[in-house]
């Protein structure tokens, strides 16, 4: 059975006229789906709305046969959710907490529950730390615990909201590995503002900014579309403004004290520019730049 999440015309405005979502329409098939966007783009709003935690002003969401906005109980049965802002009871051990959440997921049989919990602790590499208080977990361990609880109860829809924010590279890698191991026949939505997360993991993706869906499709295809249109040059800092005026600078990056600029252009914009192989970052910044959104300043 192939599950498809359909988001139609979803809008949401917060008090104070902050529009978090503007008529977002999106199809998400099974598999890993990356939702990319800068901070404050509306990613979390979208994720929470799908996770039954927020109400849109209008629009609809369906997951297969389920009307997500109305049949919340049905959604919750098959949902695994790792929120962005995610605390833990600091004085409870990982195993006990997972066990508790398993009961709430509906795994009532004690033996089955223990097996599930132990399997997940193994899978997320928390087995050795299972007796430790959650309050003592590092960020990476906590996120792995988060994915463990999201995986409880055989979910068909998994939502992970900004799971890699704040993790060090090693932890991040380990976390992505874990995610990549999640089965194929479920819908997995990963929201992030880190382009690499998407490029390394996702078959499909969407970019949103200021509540608007800017692009949706396969990362490979998007990169393909930019082929031959991204140019790079190393310049001095003082030259940057001049370049900005003259051409479409999509990103700048510091490298060894010098500034590397990427420019989107159908042809070589200037002498000194060399064509580079476009990557997802370029896609991202190009799309943002086109929408007039956040200044593309890569870290």
């Amino acid at each position: 059975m192939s599950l498809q999440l359909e988001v139609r015309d979803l809008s949401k405005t917060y008090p104070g006229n902050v529009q978090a979502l503007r008529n977002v329409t999106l199809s998400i098939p099974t598999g890993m789906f990356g939702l990319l966007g800068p901070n404050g783009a509306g990613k979390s709003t979208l994720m929470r709305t799908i996770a039954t935690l927020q109400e849109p002003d209008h629009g609809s969401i369906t997951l297969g046969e389920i009307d997500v906005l109305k049949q919340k109980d049905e959604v919750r049965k098959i949902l695994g959710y790792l929120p962005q802002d995610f605390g833990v009871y600091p004085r409870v051990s990982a195993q006990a907490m997972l066990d508790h959440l398993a009961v709430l997921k509906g795994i009532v049989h004690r033996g089955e529950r223990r097996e599930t919990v132990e399997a997940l602790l193994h899978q997320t590499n928390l087995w050795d730390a299972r007796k430790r208080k959650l309050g003592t977990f590092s960020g990476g361990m906590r996120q792995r615990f988060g994915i463990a609880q999201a995986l409880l109860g055989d979910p068909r829809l998994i939502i992970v909201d900004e799971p890699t924010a704040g993790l060090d590279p090693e932890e991040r890698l380990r976390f992505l590995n874990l995610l990549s191991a999640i089965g194929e026949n479920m819908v997995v939505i990963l929201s992030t503002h880190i382009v690499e997360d998407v490029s390394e993991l996702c078959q499909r993706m969407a970019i949103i900014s200021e509540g608007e869906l800017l692009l949706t499709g396969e990362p490979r295809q998007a990169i393909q579309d930019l082929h031959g249109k991204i140019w790079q040059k190393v310049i001095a800092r003082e030259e940057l403004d001049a370049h900005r005026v003259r051409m479409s600078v999509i990103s700048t990056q510091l490298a060894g004290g010098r500034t590397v600029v990427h420019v989107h252009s159908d042809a070589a914009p200037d002498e000194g520019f060399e064509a580079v192989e476009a990557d997802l970052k370029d896609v991202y910044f190009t799309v943002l730049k086109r929408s007039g959104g956040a200044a593309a300043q890569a870290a």
Partner: protein
Amino acid sequence: MFIEIFRFELRHHLRSALFWLSAFLLFLMAFGAVASDVVQIGGAIGRVNRNAPFVIGQILLVMSVIAVFVTTAFLAGAVVRDYDYRTHELFFSTRVRKRDYIWGRFLGSFVAAVLVVTPVALGIILGSAMPWLEPERVGPFSLQPYLFSFLVIVIPNLFLMSAVFFGLATATRSVMWTYVGLVVFFVGFSIAGVLLGDLENEGLAAILDPFGAGAIGLATRYWTVAERNTQILAVEGPLLTNRLLWSALAAGVLILTYALFSFTAKESRKARRARRKAEGELPTAEVAPGASLGIRTGTIRAYSGRALSTQFLLQAGREVGTVIRSLPFAVILALGVLNLVGTASVTDQLFGTPVHPRTYLMFQTIASGFLLFAIIILTFYSGEMVFRERSQRMDEVFDALPVPNGVYWGSKLVALFVIVLAVLAVAVLASMGVQTYRGYTDFQLVLYFKGVFLLTGIPFLLIAVLALVVQVVTNNKYVGFMLMALYFVAAPVLQALHFEHNLFYYAGAPLVPYSDMNGFGHFVEPVAWFYLFWSLVAVLLLAGVHLLWVRGKETSLAKRWALARQRFSGPVWTTLVTAGVGAAVVGSWIFYNTNVLNQYVPGNVVEDRQARYEKDYKRHEGIAQPRIVAIRTEVDIFPQERAADLRGRYRLRNKTDEAITELHVTVPPEVDIEEIVVPGSTLATEDDEVRYYIYRLASPLAPGAELDLDFSLRARSPGFRNHGFNNRLVENGTFINSGGFFPHIGYSRGGELTDPNERRKRDLPPVQRLPALEDEAAWRNHQLGMEADWVEYETVVSTSADQIALAPGYLQREWEEDGRRYFHYRMDAPILAYHSYLSARWAVKEDRWREVDIAVYYHPGHDYNVDKMIEAAKKGLEYFTANFGPYQHRQFRIIEFPRYAQFAEAFPNTIPFSESIGFIARLDDPDEIDYVTYVTAHELAHQWWAHQVIGAAVQGTTVMTETMAQYSALMVMEDEYGPELMRRFLRYELDSYLRGRGGELIEELPLKRVEFQPYIHYRKGSLAMYALKDYVGEDTLNSALARYVADVKFREPPYTTTLEFLDYVDDAVPEGQEHLLEDLFETITLYENQAREATVEERPDGTHVVRLTVESRKYRADGFGEETEIPVDDWIDVAVFGERGDEDPPEGKILLLEKRRVTEAEGVIELVVDEEPRQAGIDPFNKLVDRNPENNLVRVTEGM
């Protein structure tokens, strides 16, 4: 830099909603207190001005205490904010100096705290300018009392509280812990108040009270109306000590805080440990990319019955566990237990004498003493629970789980319930501990269960529901807290507004007094209905919780409303309709009982009726009416039905010298009239509301002629009432009397409204409590009413077969008929028309003193002090017959009645005596005041002083009854226990008298002209008579009294007055002491005796010369407390005390005690004693009315 931080801090508070909201609330409360009678703060009663300096001080004092709950948030916020917003590292790494940072923050918040209280002054000023206020109760505006109150009360209090909680917040870096500290502080404060509440600890309590309330109370405790209206307190003595002590302490705390405050971005220990652990973690084996998780997950049974029950139990268990393990819970509970133990140990004490710790006393202590703690716990933890997931940032995880809302809110509610029950269980254990410790082991577990878990527990559970509802609906913890506070404040406010029906107040129900005699009696049924009603309302509220429960991130009301409509499912509908219909049905049933079967009469309506009674019928006061000369009654008591049939005949005689054409009859509200027959008359006026009836006689009743009035009345107890239960007719312990259940002749002043302010509102002239002493026309009537003089009396009382029925008189015959017991009683000599009827299952103990049969009818099990009462009766009979004349009866009976009322009352040869004022008193300690003997002797004395000598119904009449009964009882007590115990007893009397003056609503009068003012005829009466006895000698005084009794007893009108009484007493006063009666009876005389210094010099012959420097001032006060100093010329006790031996009074061995004539306000008295002196003083035993009785003694020091 300091200035910037200070201004930043202040601005921060001034911009917060909390500041303005609290300022507004404080303003409103102060305004309400001054401009209305709804808020009762400050003590502006009677003639005390609404804006009297005393009242201003009290209001500001109370508000400065209330405000602490807000200002603590300011101070804690000032400290914790930076940590909360994680800006502290930012702050601490800037160039801000520690000094500027701390003092800026502190002062900014402290100034905000003072500013938040300032609107109180505004509220008072504005309130007292309101046009609807009675101009005579608004004094002129003066800035001085405000300045004083701020400088001496508000600012020091806020400074102390600010310093302490600033320090605590700095130490804990947690708002919650700071608040826990606040709760601990207040509870400790109230416990200290209870423990130091005794008269003997006043001075210490005054200094230790951090708010200065004790010190102010001590300084103003005896203030009269005049002083309250004009005086500004002097900052001296305990008040000064108190203010200096606590301000110094506050400064110390601040300095300590400053020293301890670490100006580095220090991590908490917990966070550091967590980080270390995390850092130490080594990478573990990696999961191979792409490997399938292949997790075997268990069977998912979300939403199945089994899942729901498991989830429910799990969640509830977790909530309970979290609360019970949390420290604040333990702290609050421990304090609750401490408070309970403290209160339970002193409950029901009279004159400091304890009682046997019966179980009902324990559960009543729990119900009243634990309420506050239950409320704090419920309010606090309902907030914690509702927001627990959110504060832990676990809400999104939990809210996305396949768990219905009902499991979440339901488990929290059940957890609150479990906590309530656990708290009560702890309270029960603690109470049983108190009982055991005091050697009492009859625990009555079933009674504990009913009293604690049902009667007390159910309202607590209802409050738990409310606390949860408030949190969920407002979705703001602090607004929820405030609403709960408002809920508790609303109770007295609704009362004051006369919304007295329990249906107006959530969880409201009538009180359930418990009596050993009558158990819970008929009080349980109404309460059960009210609880059922409120439980159904609680279900409706919970439906609201279900619908508005916040799940997910939507918190706006509009969105929640939209979600609620989604949740409006079938079961919700069914619940709403069922509970709604149920509440409507039960509510209607309650209404039917309280307002249809019975009358619901709020206090203001009662007052309106009193006013109308007076307006319509006062003109009939004093018109010629016949008097009752014989009473014959038949009273059938039906204890099971709480009913009685009262039939009888009054023989009336026209004792006036004019023909009487109308007979005026009033009937008390407790009885229904079956029939009143006045032969040959027509009913001319029939006023059923105030129950005034005028019968026009067909032929006038000639002087000396007689007329019979026959009546048949019914007392019934249909259904139940909202308040004011008839607790006279009960299953076991019926006590009905002539005043409340029988017809009366003529207009009675007793039915008038007395509160001067309520009278003014209803355009009634100032009240006249009694006619003037010299009003000879009024001498025709005696104190107990104008309807009769001395009457013949006879009655037949019947009751159910298992009970005894009693009435005044001697038993003529006893028989059974139709399964009921009948008793025929008859008096063989005329008595006052003052009769009572009692019925219960008693045990009887009988004894004899000469020809007098003594009997005590008591509840089986209440035999603790029965022998004591018999002994007291014997001693009283002995003393009174020896000193005042023979006893007129051959019988003396004490009859126990349920503790619904706390008094004993003397009927002819019959004394109904409440369960609570002696039957369970614990008199094992010989140092305690034996009030059993005292009350018994007092009531016995009334057989002389009331039932032989009765005064005319004019000013001073109660001197011949209450004052003389007090004196007689004092003499019996002194004979038994000696003068030292009397002195302790008289200290209570002095305190009650002086305090009573401050509570006077109309005007204080000299004893000679007392107008039913208990603080005068009992308290001052005791003091005056004791002092008189001390001056003239017991025997001299008593022989004068005996002559008086012999001459006036059983006298027909005109009755005796204090004029005559004082004539006889005057004979006893020796020459040179003529001013005694003037000081004690004819004026309000006060003394200020003070021992300033005492030095000693040893003479060669071994004697010691003590030079005592004294100050002795004498004042005369008018009825409002305005004092004028008059020259002193009195014989006053002076004394020297030595080392205290075992037998000596607490002051020490009396080396010298004699009366010296004092004529100078200041002087030196030389006293020579044989042994080494320790203390010396003037009027050391407080025989004179002295407003500062503590400074009469001084330590003796070596002279030059």
